[in-house]
Each structure stands twice: as C-alpha cells, then as structure tokens.
C-alpha cells in the first residue's frame, strides 16, 4: 500500500485495532456519564438531553423508551457525534467507549469509529438509503472506507451480507436500487449495512416503526439472531413497550430529555417505581379476551423543552404530584441492583405498592393481569360539556323546525 493511502486509513486502522483490544478493567464497552446536550436556538436553550447516564456491555440490549421529543434520538446522535455544533452544544458529561472518550475525539478519529465500531440503523430506510446508488455499493462503502477493501471484494462481501439478513437471490439483488426493495427488505439491507464492519455497538433508532407488524416480527427476530452470532451490544430506541419487552435486557425510560427510570427489563415491567412509567403502561390497550378495561391516559401534553417545568418535569402531568414536586427537583433514587428513578416517592414502598400497575408474570396461564381502577371513559367535566352541547343542539333543532313550519 502506498504511504499516502496508509495515512488516509490510519484512523480506521486504529479504530479497528481498538475493537480487538480487551476492555480495561472497571470500564464498560460503552459508558454514558451525565451527558448533557443543549441546543441554542432563537427561542432559548433547548435541553434536549439533560443528564443521561448508563452503561452497556457486550451481548446486552438497552431499550430506550419515551415519547417523541423526549431526547431518545438526540442521545444516540450525540454518541455518534452526528449533532451539528452549533446549534448543539455539549454542556457536560462524557461518553466512554472502551474507556476512551468519544467526545474528545477529533472528527477524523470519529470517522474511524462510525460504522466501524458503532453503527446505526435509522427509522426510515427509504430516506436513509441513497436512491442513486445500488444497494451493493452502499453496503460495501463502509468496508472500502474502513477496511480498505477493493470494489470487487466489497461487492462480494455485500452479497454475503445480504444473504445473511435473509434476502433471497442476493447476487442479483446487490445490483438493485433501493426503490426496487420493499420496506422490510430495505430495513434488512440497512441492518446488513450496519453489520458490515462487525461493530461493537449497534444503535437502532425506531427500526420497526415504519413497518407492518408481521414484518416487524421478522426484523426483531433478525436482530436477535445477528446479536447471538456477533455478540454486539444493541441500543434499541423505540416508543413501543412491546418491542422493548421482546428484545431489551435493560430499559431506560426518558421524559423531557431525562432518564426518569432505568433498570433491567424485569425491574421496569414487574416493579416500576416512577409514575411516568406507570402512566405509559396504563396507556397501552392490552390484548384482553374477556373484559375490556378503560385506558387511563396521562393527562396533558409533554412539556416544551425550551420551557421545562420547575421541579420535577413530569409534575404537571403526574397524578401524585405534591407542592414539593413542583418546586424541587427530585434526586435520583437508586437501589442496590442499579435500578434508578427520579421521583421523591420511588423509595416509599407503600406508595409504590399502592399506585403502580401490577403486571404479573403469569406465564403458566399466559394471561396478563393488570389491575386498573375502573373509570368512566369521559371525566366529569367532559361529561358535563357533552350534556351542555346536546341541550344546545336540541334547542337549535327545535327552533329550526319552528322556523320551517312557519315558513
């Protein structure tokens, strides 16, 4: 190889070497420490990510759950160094990959890492794939850049990868353009592309949201298969608690830029301790076969990130909020196992016992029991409003008929 080329590949080779090294003792594959990413906009400072912390090791899957605008995607983009700065600015915290800080790396060094060590799958495969290049060329791009493959080698590997993710007739399909693939196949191609350089960490940002359920089931199964084979870590960003239940080992629930609860999948589903997590669980219609139970939605709307409420950011929507919640920011309550929550009452066993939805793990009968307080679909004020509307409609109708009679 010529010297110039070698120089060009330098960062990629370094990043590649990093993958093979042992993780230093006491360090994790990925460690996010109190990460803060703010956007400086005309309307003010948007605190998109405000104090996110977690650790991730090989073979682990972290599920990040939250509603739109809760900062799930921005966290992932910050890790990948994909946020444009300005307007974005890192206000604190760090991201350690195998003990090395990603945030202090130069752009060149990051280029070595992206796709090679940490890869990403995006929500919408149609916009994430380039429509004017063939699938094969896009699949091989990472290999050529990071590993110095020749065009031929890259194409051969692309074929292999397509076959691996279950696309039939791979040697023909590598010559196809993205529009010739169906939605599910495009997402498979995206997964193949992300896995091309055998990354340590795979970040999947709502990978199944745009897909139908039967295709979603295929994709999730594929991701699990690939993890069993390659032993990578996965960060699964989604709003669907069902998807998370399927795939995640650890779960982080985000609200208004902050993780409000973090724990193992078992802890989050069977022993949640934050009222927002409870609210989410009560909001999903369950597949019952006997009686339908009314949903208990979370009232109000998610806050604007420019103007996060004082105290606990969930307090305006929280049915249990006290005066203190509206004034003071709750500290992080942490149990021995690492399960943590940002709520004053998380440590209060009696309170949690009384108010949390109970999802029981009754696998034997296969039924899911959730206790819900019976509640009318419409609250009192709405019911009164309905009554008023009906009366006025009746009145106008009556006056209309009178008029027509007269006429």
């Amino acid at each position, binding site marked *: 190889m010529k010297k110039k080329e070698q120089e060009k590949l330098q960062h990629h080779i370094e990043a590649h070497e990093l993958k093979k090294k042992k993780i230093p003792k006491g360090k994790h594959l990925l460690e996010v420490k109190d990460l803060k990413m703010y956007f400086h906009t005309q309307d003010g400072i948007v605190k998109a990510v405000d104090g996110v912390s977690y650790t991730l090791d090989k073979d682990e899957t972290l599920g990040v759950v939250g509603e739109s605008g809760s900062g799930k995607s921005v966290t992932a983009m910050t890790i990948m160094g994909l946020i444009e700065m300005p307007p974005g600015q890192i206000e604190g915290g760090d991201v350690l990959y195998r003990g090395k800080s990603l945030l202090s790396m130069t752009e060149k060094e990051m280029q070595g890492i992206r796709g090679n060590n940490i890869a990403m799958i995006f929500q919408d495969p149609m916009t994430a794939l380039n429509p004017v290049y063939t699938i094969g060329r896009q699949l091989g791009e990472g290999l050529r850049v990071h590993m110095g493959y020749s065009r031929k080698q890259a194409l051969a590997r692309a074929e292999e990868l397509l076959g691996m993710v279950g696309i039939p007739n791979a040697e023909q399909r590598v010559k196809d353009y993205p529009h010739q693939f169906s939605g*599910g196949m495009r997402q498979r191609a995206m997964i193949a592309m992300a896995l091309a350089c055998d990354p340590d960490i795979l970040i999947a940002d709502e990978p199944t949201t745009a897909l139908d359920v039967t295709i979603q089931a295929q994709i999730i199964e594929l991701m699990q298969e690939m993890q069993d084979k390659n032993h990578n870590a996965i960060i699964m960003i989604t709003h669907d608690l*069902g998807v998370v239940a399927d795939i995640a080992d650890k779960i982080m629930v985000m609200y208004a830029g902050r993780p409000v609860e973090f724990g193992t999948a078992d802890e989050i589903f069977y022993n949640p301790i934050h009222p927002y997590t409870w609210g989410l669980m009560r909001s999903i219609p369950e597949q019952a076969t006997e009686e339908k139970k009314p949903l208990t939605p979370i009232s109000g709307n998610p806050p604007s990130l420019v103007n996060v409420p004082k105290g606990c950011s969930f307090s305006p929507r929280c049915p249990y909020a006290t005066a203190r919640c509206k004034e003071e920011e709750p500290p992080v309550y942490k149990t021995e196992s690492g399960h943590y929550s940002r709520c004053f009452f998380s440590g209060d066993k009696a309170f949690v016992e009384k108010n949390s939805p109970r999802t029981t*793990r009754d696998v034997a009968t*296969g039924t899911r029991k959730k206790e819900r307080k019976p509640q009318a679909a419409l609250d009192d004020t709405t019911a009164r409003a309905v009554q008023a509307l009906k009366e006025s409609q009746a009145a106008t109708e009556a006056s209309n008929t009178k008029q027509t009679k007269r006429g």
Partner: protein
Amino acid sequence: MANTTKEQPLLQVKHLTKEFPVESGVFGSRFAKHVSAVDDVSFNIYPRKTFGLVGESGCGKSTTGRCIMRLLRPTKGEVIFDGQDVAQLKKKELKAVRRNMQYIFQDPYASLNPRMTIGEIISEPMVIHNEGGSRAERIESVKKLLDVVGLNPEHINRYPHEFSGGQRQRIGIARAFALSPKLIICDEPVSALDVSIQAQVLNLLDGLQEAFGTAYLFIAHDLSVVQHISDEVAVMYLGNLMEYSDWRSLYAEPYHPYTQALLSAVPVPNPDIQKTRERIILAGDPPSPINPPKGCRFHTRCPIATEECKKERPPMKEVEAGHFCACWHAKPFPIEGSSVEL
C-alpha cells in the same frame, strides 16, 4: 353477525370492489392493468357500534373507507346507508347523505386548513349544511364542542399550527361531531400520536360514542387499539376480508391463519410472556395487488396452504355463530390471554 338484537344495520357494504387503473407504458393499451385494491368486501355496521377494520399497509382498508364515503366511486358493489345506495347517488343527493357520515383523518397536520381558525374549521360542516342557526349560535356550539373535546373554548380564534398533534386530532374530532352524524369513519385516528396522547383520544372517542350514539368504522393497523375500541373486528389482507366476528371471539379464537399470525406478531409488553410464547413469523412480504396470487390471496405466505388454496378462493363461511372466516382450512387456534400455543 354477532348482533343478537334484530336491529337494522346502519350501513351495509355488499360485494364492494374498487379497481384502480395502472398505466402500462407509452405503447400498447393504456390502463390495461388494474390494481384491485378492494375485492368483494361485504360487512354491516350497526347503529351505536364500532366496526374495526385491521390490516397491514396497502391491504385496502382506507380505500374501503373512502368508497363508503364516496370520496372514491366503487367499481362494483353496493354501499347502503340509511336505505340508499351511496355508490349510485348523484352529487346533490350525496350531500344529504354525507351530513350523517363524517370522516376523521389520520394526519392531524394535513387535514386541517392552516389558513382557517379552528372556529371556522369546526363550524364549516354547519355552514355547508346550513344548520346550527345564526352565526352567533354557531359560535356558541363550536365553543361547546371545543369544551367537549377537551380544548379551551377561548382558543376558538387560533390557527391549527398553534396546537400539538393530539390537540389537532381533537379539533378533527370536534369537526366530525359538529352535526352529530350517525356514522363516523375514523381512518387511523391515533396512529400519528404518542402513546399517552393516543390513550386520551381513544377514551374521548369511546365516551363521545356513548354520549351521542354514533357508529364508528374504525380503520387501523394496530391490533390492540382496534381491540380496545371495537365491538366487531374484520381483518383484511390484500383487498380481501379474511375474517370477521365480534372482538372477543376474533381475539380469543381466531380461525384464519393470517389473523393468527397477525395476533402472534404483536409484541406483548410483558417480557416473560413475550419471550416464552410461541409465535408464527410469516416469511416474505405481501404480494403486489397488481398481480395478486390466484386462489386464496394469502396462500403465498400461509404456513398451512395446500393445492386447493392455490386454485380456488375460499368463500366466507360462518364457522361459529357470528364468526365468519374465508379459509379452506379454518380451525380455531385458541390464544389464551396473549400467549400462543401451537
């Protein structure tokens, strides 16, 4: 149908078929090919009940809704609403029928005119049908409607962009209820919303149905949402109805292999159950409706398809009282709670 009372259906859809022409190129005959988006679909909707229509994207569920509203003219078949065949009506007659039939759209951003205030948007149905009394009376009832859907009546002069997605969907609901119609076609009304907001809107729809006695045709792809809101549920695949029944029977004892696969593909938010239950994962993608498979349209992906399925399309049969299924090999497949046993 599972309706035990001998009530007259509000809406009867009989053998509804909608074909769209596809241009086949510069040479040769244009429009030689057709996509049969909806093919021979029949069902009834009863007053004050919710009829859920589920299926994957491209299966023709929205086209069915649009044909009923006559936003599209059906190629074949009848849509009988209130004793009139909507499919054959003239424009003027349609207006009268549509007074009792309203539509809630999926996209709360695209379905509200950005240049109109929400007061104008919600009162428009009253203006078009010349109802609701004087201008002042209309404003009064718009305010009451806003109150009903949980918005502040003082916001009557605001524009759609000042509202969040969930609030806009509430505006759409207020508009649909402005004339208290007999039937509202809800086309994926909650799929663009976040979970917590989705639950609010579902509860609102539920409560308004109880209060006003409206029937819903609820079109959605989310099986849990459809189950929650519907009295009867129909499953569509590639333009055909596969199975329909009252919700309890369909979810507890689906007969059609497609319904079974669909139900087992929905991830259950309970790790122990989700990780242990057996699932049917369908291979491949739905075929193109331009060239649908012969026989049963599902046979290319069906785990139990036989020669018979490839040759002839199975008729809709009553497999149980009120439970209809179009499959040669229909058999119950009990899904206890949410776990699937094979």
